[in-house]
C-alpha cells in the first residue's frame, strides 16, 4: 500500500540523487551468487541482492511433447512466495504476484531462445525433456524479480542431465552432459516514482513506485521480453530512458553469469 508521507520522503532524497540507504538512483545493492545449493536438483543457484534472497532449482523431467510441436521440449517456470520470506506472504496457492513473476522470468528465458527446445527432443512425438525451474523466495526486501531472473539463468546454465536409459531416469546419477545454453538473457526492472527513475528497489521503495518496467536484454543489447507494472502509465520518453538504463545495468549483471 502506498504511503504519501514515505513517498514524499523518498522523493526528497531522490531529488539529491540519493536513496534512503545512501545508494545512488542507478546503483544496485551488493549482489552475491552461489551455485549448486541443492544436491537434489539438476542445477541450482542462490542470488542475494542486499537482504533479498532467492533460490532457483531445476528438475529435468521426461514428458510428452505437444501434438503441434512434436520435436520441442518444454520449459516450465514456477515461483513460490514463501511465507518464510515475509510477513506479507501467506500460505496457500500461488498469488498473483508470484504468478506474474514466474511469467516474466519464463518469457525472458523462452523468448531469448537461450535453450534450444529442439535439442530437448528424445524421440519425436513421444518423449522430450522438460526443463522445470522452481523459484523460491527466501527473504523479500524488494526486487524479487531481478533476483529471480538471475537465479534462474544461473541455475539453468549450470544444469546437467540426469542419467536416462531410454526408459527410466535415474536422478541419483547426474551425467556430465550440461543443458546447453546459447544466450544469456538478463532481466532488470527499472522503477519510476514521481519523475525519478531508479533500479533495484528495497521494499519500502517498491511499495511506493508509480510504475515499473521489467526489461530482459541479450548480449547484443536486443530486448527479448518486457513487462510494465505499477498503476501509472509511461510516456515514450520514459520508456526510452528506462530501456537504456536496464540495458546498461544488464551489462553489469551479465558479468555474474560468466
Amino acid at each position, binding site marked *: 500500500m502506498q504511503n504519501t508521507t514515505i513517498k514524499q520522503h523518498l522523493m526528497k532524497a531522490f531529488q539529491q540523487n540519493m536513496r534512503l540507504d545512501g545508494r545512488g538512483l542507478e546503483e544496485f545493492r551488493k549482489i552475491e551468487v552461489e551455485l549448486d*545449493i*541443492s*544436491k*537434489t*536438483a539438476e542445477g*541450482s543457484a542462490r542470488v542475494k541482492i542486499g*537482504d533479498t*534472497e532467492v*533460490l532457483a*532449482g*531445476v*528438475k529435468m*523431467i521426461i514428458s510428452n511433447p505437444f501434438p503441434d510441436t512434436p520435436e520441442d521440449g518444454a520449459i516450465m517456470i*514456477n515461483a*513460490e512466495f*514463501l*511465507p*518464510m*520470506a*515475509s*510477513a506479507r506472504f501467506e*500460505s496457500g*496457492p500461488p498469488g498473483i504476484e508470484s504468478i506474474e513473476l514466474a511469467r516474466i522470468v519464463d518469457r525472458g528465458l523462452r523468448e531469448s531462445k537461450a535453450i534450444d527446445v529442439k535439442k530437448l527432443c528424445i524421440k519425436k512425438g513421444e518423449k522430450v525433456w522438460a526443463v*522445470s525451474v*522452481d523459484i*523460491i523466495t*527466501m*527473504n*523479500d*526486501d524488494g526486487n524479487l524479480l531481478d533476483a529471480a531472473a538471475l537465479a534462474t539463468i544461473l541455475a539453468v546454465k549450470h544444469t546437467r542431465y540426469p542419467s536416462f536409459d531410454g526408459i527410466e*531416469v535415474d*536422478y*541419483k546419477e547426474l551425467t556430465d552432459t550440461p543443458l546447453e545454453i546459447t544466450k544469456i538473457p538478463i532481466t532488470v526492472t527499472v522503477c519510476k516514482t514521481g519523475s525519478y527513475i531508479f533500479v533495484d528497489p528495497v521494499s519500502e521503495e517498491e511499495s511506493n513506485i508509480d510504475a515499473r518496467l521489467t526489461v530482459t536484454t541479450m548480449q547484443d543489447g536486443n530486448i527479448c521480453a518486457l513487462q510494465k507494472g505499477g498503476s501509472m502509465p509511461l510516456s515514450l520518453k520514459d520508456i526510452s530512458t528506462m530501456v537504456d538504463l536496464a540495458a546498461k545495468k544488464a551489462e553489469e549483471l551479465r558479468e555474474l553469469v560468466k
Partner: protein
Amino acid sequence: MGYSQRLDGRKLDELRPIEAKAGVIKNADGSAFFRIGKTSAYAAVYGPRELYPKFMQDPSKGILRCNYSMMPFSGIGERVRPGPNRRAREISLVTEKALAPVVELGEFPNAVIDVFIELPQTDAGSRCAGICAASMALADAGIPMKDLVAAVSVGKVHDKILVDLDYNEEAYEDGPVADIPIALVPSTQEISLLQMDGEISKEELMQALELGRTVIPQIIEIQKKALKEKYAIKDDQ
C-alpha cells in the same frame, strides 16, 4: 553376513556431518539453517503475532503453528509438487508436538507463533533436520523455552541398530529396515517425537532409543554453539 559395513562407511553411532547457523532469514523474528549430510532445512519464526480468524485464538495461551514443506527440487527423485500434501501436513503436526513441550506459550494469550520449515535438499531425515532448525529458530526469536529440542532418526538396518539413516539405508533391500525418527528434550530426557516404519522387536526398539539418547547431545551442542556464535559479543578492534 548381515549389515557389516555401513554403505557410506560411518560407524553405527556416527552422525553424518552437521552444519548449523542461526539468523539466516532477515525478515523473520528468528531463523536457522541446519544441515545433516545432504539433508538441509531452513526454519523461520514469525511471531508471536496476532492470530486471525479470531475463533482460532486461545485466550489461555499462544498457539504454536508449524509448516513443513519440501522445495519442489528437494526430493531424491522426481520433482515434488509444491503446496501441502498429506505427508507434509502430518509432518507439520508431529513437528508441532515435538516442539510444544519446551515452548512457554502462556506468555502469549490469543497470539500465534508461526514456524515455517523449508527443505532445499533431502537425503532422508528431513523431519528431524526440520525440528532441529525450528528449535534453533524459536530460541533465536527470543521465545521463552525450557530447553532446545534435537531430533535424529535411529533404527535398524538388517541386523544392526544404528543412528541417522540416509536414503540408501532406508532403501536397503537385503534385510529388514526400521526407521524411527525421534526428538529428545535433553533436560528431562523425554522423547517428544516418535514414529516408526519397518520392522523391529521391542528389545531392539528400546536399544535404538537408548542409542538415540546418547547421540542427540552431540546435536544439541552444535545447535547451541551456532546460536551463541550469532550473539557473541565481538569486542574486536
